[in-house]
């Protein structure tokens, strides 16, 4: 069942929240040993919340009885916020749930656990040296993508209908692509990041993953709104999108990104992009100005800010890092300050250039990842005919857009092959509504959908 179906069933009394949660916990018990998506399962808490919801006479919210889970960099009261690390295990448990959890539970959703992720969100792979890799629900020998790997595995594998992840450079959109689910990276500053372990403050976003566009939208709506606890969160009222999903795309000017966004893409990535473009009647191809520079600038800001965040831990506990993360962070300490300032200046330049582009177009389509999910343990892949390091390059198509905080919906486009791949729908700031309407159109047409998992693969 989808989240909206569960909520409707619970609200109407056809199903209890307890039944929904027990069903979910049973799936987690059966499938998590295969997918390694969860690092904590909150059985007692979830059942208690479900019981309270069933006993309450109050009107049920739009997420009544819907089980969800969060990436383990999001605070859950009573759990230590791991952020995928060994080092953080020494921290005390969080005193309170993060605001996004509070907001979802206020609408009836029920938290069932915390999810695996790449250490300190610096991976793109879903691999983790301490907890083991999360595994792709369509081929368990393959990566989920990351860093919200457990979120992709849990939703793609049908363990939960909803999950929260974070996206600094593509960490929602990459696992959405590899695991075949819908993901929303909202506008920078739209959703509060309070109560989450940071990575790169300049670029960090939180957002949902789901199996349908309606589920994605209702989850997003439940989480919107200002929060003074996050200085980046916009003082902007909620702008609900769920009610307008079926307004269609008439009159919208949609283009497909060319140049940089096609140069290194695999045949699968291009086939998915072209299938989406054709279904939407897109005939225009646009050049995103200086996309390669935007990706490079995002990369430099990430490396420098990430290194600064972890510098003291690199000094005092270097052996407790995942080596793949540690060595990358150390390299980040060596970036000249002038390059970081230049990257932040370029960010302003690129924002102005993209504003001009969005005066002509309402949405841009682009591949989410250059390829389908690589094999777990793989260190390189072929990009534009060259063998390149995997971790630094899986996000080449996602990084330019998160660099300036544009909202993006990643939609899964299952092809004839066994492995899914995603397409990004990018819109102007605060126009999540348009991206979701386009995603919904593709879903109705049967082009975008979350394929059934293949747990035995």
């Amino acid at each position, binding site marked *: 069942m989808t989240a909206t179906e569960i909520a409707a069933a619970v609200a109407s009394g056809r199903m209890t929240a307890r039944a929904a949660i027990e069903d979910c916990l049973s799936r987690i018990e059966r499938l998590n040993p295969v997918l390694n998506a969860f690092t904590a399962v909150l059985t007692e808490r979830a059942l208690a919340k479900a019981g309270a919801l069933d006993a309450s006479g109050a009107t049920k919210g739009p997420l009544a009885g819907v089980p969800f889970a969060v990436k383990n960099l999001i605070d859950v009261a009573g759990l230590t916020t791991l952020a995928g690390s060994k080092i953080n295990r020494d921290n005390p448990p969080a005193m309170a749930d993060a605001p996004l959890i509070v907001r979802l539970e206020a609408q009836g959703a029920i938290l069932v656990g915390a999810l695996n992720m790449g250490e300190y969100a610096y991976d793109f792979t879903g691999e983790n040296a301490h907890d083991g890799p999360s595994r792709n629900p369509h081929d368990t020998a393959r990566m989920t993508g990351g860093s919200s790997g457990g979120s992709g595995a849990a939703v793609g594998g049908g363990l939960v209908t909803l999950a929260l992840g974070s996206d600094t450079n593509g960490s929602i959109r990459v696992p959405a692509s590899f695991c075949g689910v819908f993901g929303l990276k909202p506008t920078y500053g739209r959703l509060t990041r309070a109560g989450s372990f940071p990575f790169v403050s300049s670029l960090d976003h939180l957002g949902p993953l789901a199996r349908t566009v309606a589920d994605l939208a209702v989850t997003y709506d439940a989480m919107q709104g200002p929060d003074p606890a996050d200085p980046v969160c916009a003082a902007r009222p909620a702008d609900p999108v769920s009610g307008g999903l079926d307004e269609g795309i008439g009159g919208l000017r949609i283009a497909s990104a060319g140049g940089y966004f096609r140069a290194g893409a695999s045949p699968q990535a291009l086939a998915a992009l072209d299938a989406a473009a054709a279904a939407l009647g897109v005939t225009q191809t646009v050049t995103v100005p200086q996309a390669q*520079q935007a990706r*490079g*600038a995002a990369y430099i800001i990430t*490396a420098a800010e990430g290194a600064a965040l972890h510098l003291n831990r690199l*000094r005092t506990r270097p052996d407790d890092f995942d080596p793949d993360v540690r060595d*990358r962070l150390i*390299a980040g*300490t060596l970036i000249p300050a002038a390059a970081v300032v*230049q990257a932040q200046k370029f960010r*302003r330049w690129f924002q102005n250039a993209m504003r001009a582009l969005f005066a002509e177009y309402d949405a841009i389509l682009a591949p989410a990842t250059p390829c389908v999910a690589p094999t777990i343990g793989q260190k390189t892949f072929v990009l534009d005919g060259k063998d390149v390091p995997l971790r630094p390059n899986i996000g080449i198509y996602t990084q330019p857009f998160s660099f300036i905080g544009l909202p993006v919906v990643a939609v899964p486009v299952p092809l004839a092959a066994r492995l899914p791949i995603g397409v990004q729908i990018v819109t102007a700031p605060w126009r999540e509504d348009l991206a979701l309407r386009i995603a919904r159109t593709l879903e109705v047409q049967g082009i975008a959908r979350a394929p059934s998992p293949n747990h035995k693969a």
Partner: protein
Amino acid sequence: MDEAAMDALIDAGTALAGIEIKPHWRPAVRMHLSVNLALTATLMTMDLPDDIDPAPVFQA
């Protein structure tokens, strides 16, 4: 920047930062440093106007 120059930068930079680097970490650090430096070099070729404000506190 060749390998020797990168190693010199690694040695000096990690010493400055107070990070003790073990010999078997060096190839991976060097690989990531070379990626960073290549992107930095390209970025620094951008001739941006003096009056563009950097955007560390960014509003979309």
